[in-house]
Structures are given as structure tokens and as C-alpha cells.
């Protein structure tokens, strides 16, 4: 049944789609590997003399704009944000699936929250943070990243826990295990793949969050999604495009690598999140 001609067409379409959809990253990567002089004379996708000079230049300007500081901020806030989201959503999802508590209001609330533009809450949260001293702190940013991720994580857990066989938990109950023990020693190990998949997805979403990073931080806690644009204005006059390109690649690399390695889990979570939500 396989027609070689149609197959070739499919491959061509696939290659074209990969090239076009990933074009921003490809073109930025190419620019980041050109010298500043070459960037000015050669805007094509060919590199005449590849160099890592721009990457060295990024790290050399750490006294004014510290890329490692921004990357660390993103890492810390994203980790806390994703882990906290899971810590809050996991027991709640269990309670909804097994005790029926909150299923009629908490789950719909979380699902619908994903459809509400978060800018609505941004201003009062800014004012609240100002009052309690959470502005420009990694923990303050992490709390918001947790808020951003809770709906998706809750939906993923609620559907996966409901699918777990009840018998194992019942056996645990008969053996005298309380709910907390069951949760930690029985339900959590059975949900490890969902935990892993939602952690990765939550981490990527956290890393890529921009609006709250922009509003709630000024320097100490600025994530790299916001800090990257600082390098565009780094040299007074014109933009140093090589440096800017290198910064963008460095900022994009962590989620990109995670995405490549864990595409299966991410794809499944995204699909489940969309369909179950």
C-alpha cells in the first residue's frame, strides 16, 4: 500500500515544517555563532567564520548584567514553583478522587482558572507583595509560578489517581495504614510517572513565564525570560546582536533540552491536560 512518491512528499513536508517552525531558534543560534563584524556584513544563515566569542562576551559582562544570576533565579523559582504546585495539588487531587471532597467546586475552579487571563490578578498581587515585602524575591516569584501551574497539575493528578486500582489502597487500609501513609507509600509511588511528567511540564512553563517576572521583580529575583532583554540595551548605542543572540540561546537551552529528552511525557501531559480539562 505504501506509495514511495507520497512518502517522499511527506518527508519534504515534515522537513519544511521543522525548519519553518523552529526558524527563530535556528536563526538566533546561527547569529550567536558569528562574530560581531560578520553579523553586520552577513545576515544570511551561512556562517563564514564560526566563533564562540559572543558566549565568552556574555559571561565577561557579568559585572553589569549577570546571566548566571538570571539563570539561577529562573532555576530556583521554577523548581520551588513546580514542586510546591505538586505538593499542594497531589493531596487535593487524592481527596477529590477518593473522598469526593471539592470535586464539584475546586476542580471546575482550577480548570476554568486556566482560561482566565492572569493579568486580572497581577495588579492586586503586586500591591499585596509590596505590602508584605515579597516584591523582587525568588520565593515571591515562585508562589506565582505555583499558582500558574496548579490548575494543570491538579487536572493531571485528578484523572490519573482516579484511574489507579482501588484494591491496593484497600489492602493498605486493612493493614492499618492511615491516609497520609497510604498517600506517601502507596499512591505516590504508583503515580511516579505522572509526578515526573507534570514536574517537567510545570518546570518548563515556570521557566518561560514572563508577565509576573516582569511585574514583580526588578533585579534580585529577575528570571532569565525577563533578564534576556536587558542585554539588548547593554551597550548604550546599538544592540550587540551577537551577545543578544547568545543570551537568548542560553536562556532557551534548558527547556529545549528537557523538551527533547522528555517529549513523550510532555506530549502526553499536554494532551491529557487539554482533553480532561
Amino acid at each position, binding site marked *: 500500500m505504501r506509495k514511495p512518491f507520497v512518502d517522499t512528499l*511527506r518527508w519534504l513536508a*515534515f522537513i519544511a515544517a521543522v525548519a519553518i517552525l523552529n526558524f527563530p531558534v535556528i536563526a538566533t543560534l546561527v547569529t550567536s555563532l558569528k562574530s560581531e563584524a560578520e553579523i553586520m556584513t552577513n545576515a544570511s544563515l551561512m556562517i563564514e567564520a564560526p566563533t564562540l566569542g559572543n558566549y565568552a562576551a556574555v559571561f565577561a559582562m557579568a559585572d553589569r548584567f549577570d546571566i548566571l544570576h538570571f539563570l539561577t533565579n529562573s532555576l530556583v523559582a521554577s523548581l520551588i514553583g513546580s514542586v510546591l504546585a505538586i505538593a499542594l495539588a497531589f493531596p487535593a487531587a487524592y481527596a477529590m478522587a477518593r*473522598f469526593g471532597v471539592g470535586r464539584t467546586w475546586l476542580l471546575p475552579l482550577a480548570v476554568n482558572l486556566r482560561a482566565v487571563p*492572569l*493579568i486580572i490578578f497581577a495588579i492586586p498581587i503586586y500591591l499585596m507583595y509590596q505590602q508584605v515585602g515579597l516584591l523582587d524575591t525568588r520565593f515571591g516569584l515562585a508562589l506565582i509560578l505555583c499558582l500558574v501551574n496548579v490548575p494543570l497539575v491538579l487536572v493531571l493528578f485528578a484523572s490519573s489517581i482516579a484511574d489507579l486500582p482501588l484494591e491496593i489502597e484497600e489492602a493498605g487500609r486493612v493493614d492499618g495504614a492511615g491516609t497520609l501513609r497510604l498517600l506517601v507509600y502507596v499512591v505516590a509511588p504508583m503515580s511516579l510517572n505522572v509526578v515526573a511528567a507534570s514536574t517537567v511540564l510545570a518546570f518548563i512553563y515556570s521557566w518561560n513565564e514572563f508577565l509576573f517576572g516582569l511585574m514583580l521583580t526588578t533585579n534580585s529575583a529577575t528570571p532569565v525570560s525577563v533578564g534576556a532583554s536587558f542585554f539588548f540595551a547593554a551597550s548604550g548605542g546599538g544592540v550587540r546582536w551577537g551577545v543578544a543572540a547568545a543570551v537568548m540561546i542560553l536562556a532557551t537551552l534548558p527547556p529545549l533540552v528537557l*523538551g527533547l529528552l522528555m517529549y513523550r511525557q510532555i*506530549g502526553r501531559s499536554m494532551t491529557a491536560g487539554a482533553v480532561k480539562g
Partner: protein
Amino acid sequence: MPRTSRFEGRLLIAPLTAFLIALLGFPLVLDLIYSISRVGFENIRTPELVGFSNYAKAMADPEFWAAAWFSLRFGLIVAVIQVVAGLGLAVFLAPLFARRPWLIALLMLPMMVAPALVGLMYRLILHEFVGAVPYYLLEWYGDFPAFLGRDWAFTTLVTVETLQWTPFALLILHSSYAAISPDVREAAALDGARGRRLFLNIDLPLMLPAIGITFFIRFIDSFRVFDNLYTLVGPGAGGSTTSMSIYIYQAFFKVGDIGLAVAASMLLLAASFVVLWVINGLTARKAPL
């Protein structure tokens, strides 16, 4: 349900509930109060109630309506293109994915990049001297438009958003297409359906729920667009690219009009409730089928 496990259940959802009250409930109350007050940074703890004048101000602001219209138009156009392109790719490339599932990873990559960074990348790529796109357009056609100028900004932004998020439509629609049982197709093939007819009469109706969900998710995400818009054009292009999110951000941070900003937020919230109500109504009606 025994009383103890109900109690335990409440205990288990308590942390999440408390968290949501603190970071959603409380801000919402603040939104409501400030939206009917005269308030500035100097009297942030003692707002002075003034009724609905902030709402009136927002509703009378032509820029508010321009932003609402931009978001609506942007969301609808982008969602339609993404669903059509994603559906086409999902179906056409399905045989490749069936044999080599990892191929889809390369098409999912754009979703891993922060939209804010994508916006920044296009500042480089579309730059008239150092950008690759103007370079090749000049090479091939001898000319290129002002991508971020008044006439082209909307098209540029639609393209940017579409290229980044078509993979999402592709992913959801591919998994829905791959889930169609081969038996169904075989039965239809025995009845003489093939090619386009098989697709239109069998595949498409079966994929309709997934298509609807994808459309709504893409519409909602594009309607509230902020990141790439902000980093690529900012308030530029003569204000012709101000989305609702950008409007609220500017009212607060640039103009410092807290009352106007939160009133606009509440109107946006009301609008999202309307959208949600429509979506829930549509999905509820589909359920019994």
C-alpha cells in the same frame, strides 16, 4: 462516606484551598474594591469609594475598545489558522509519526521556548540590517515590508504566534487522529469509502470534539497574549497592537491609574466568564451524544 474520611478529605484539600484564597481570592476582593474607588499609591490602604466612575472611564476610552477588538480578532484569526494548519499536518504526517514517533519531538520544540524570548528573537530576525528574513526577501524579491510598522504589525504578530503554537494543535489533533480505531476505517473502506471521503465522513466527525477543544484553548491563550507582543513591539506600531493584557499593564505601570487598570481587569474577567459559559454550554450539550 464515613464522617472521618470526609474530614480527612477536607484536611487534604485545605493547603491548596488556603493557597488559592490567598493568591486568587484576596486579590479578587482587592480588584473589586479598588475598581469602585479613587485610589493611588499614596492611599493604597485607605481607598475612597467613588462608585462606578472607573468602569465608566474604561468603557468611554476608545483605546480600551481598540484593545478588546485587537485581542478578539487576534485570538480568532490565530486559533483558526492554527487548527487548520495543525489538522493538515497531523493527518498528512500521521504515517511518518506512526513509524517513528520521535519525529514529533522536533515539531514540539517551538512550544518549549518562552514566548517572550521568541518575541526577542524576532527582533533580531526581522531587523532590517542584521535579520535573516529581510536578507533573503531582498535576495529573492528585491524588497521587504516594514514588518513592525503600522500596516504589517498585525500580520507579523499573527505569524509569530501561529508559528509558535501550531505545534500544540498538531499534537492534540495527532493524538486524536491516532486514537481512531483501525476497525472503523476498515469497515468504512469495505463500504467503499477512501481518500477524501474517508477523511470527511469518518475521521473528521470523530475528531470534532478534539478540534473544538484545541480551538478554544488556542483562542483563549492568544486572546490574553502579552509576552511576545510586549518584547517584540511593546506599545509600538502606533498603539495598533495593544492587546487587553497590554492595555491593563500600561494603565497600571505607565499611567499609574490603578482604578482604571483594575476596572479594565474586572471587565476582562466578566468577558472570560462569558467565553467560559459559552464553552461549558457547548461541551455540555455535546456530552450525551
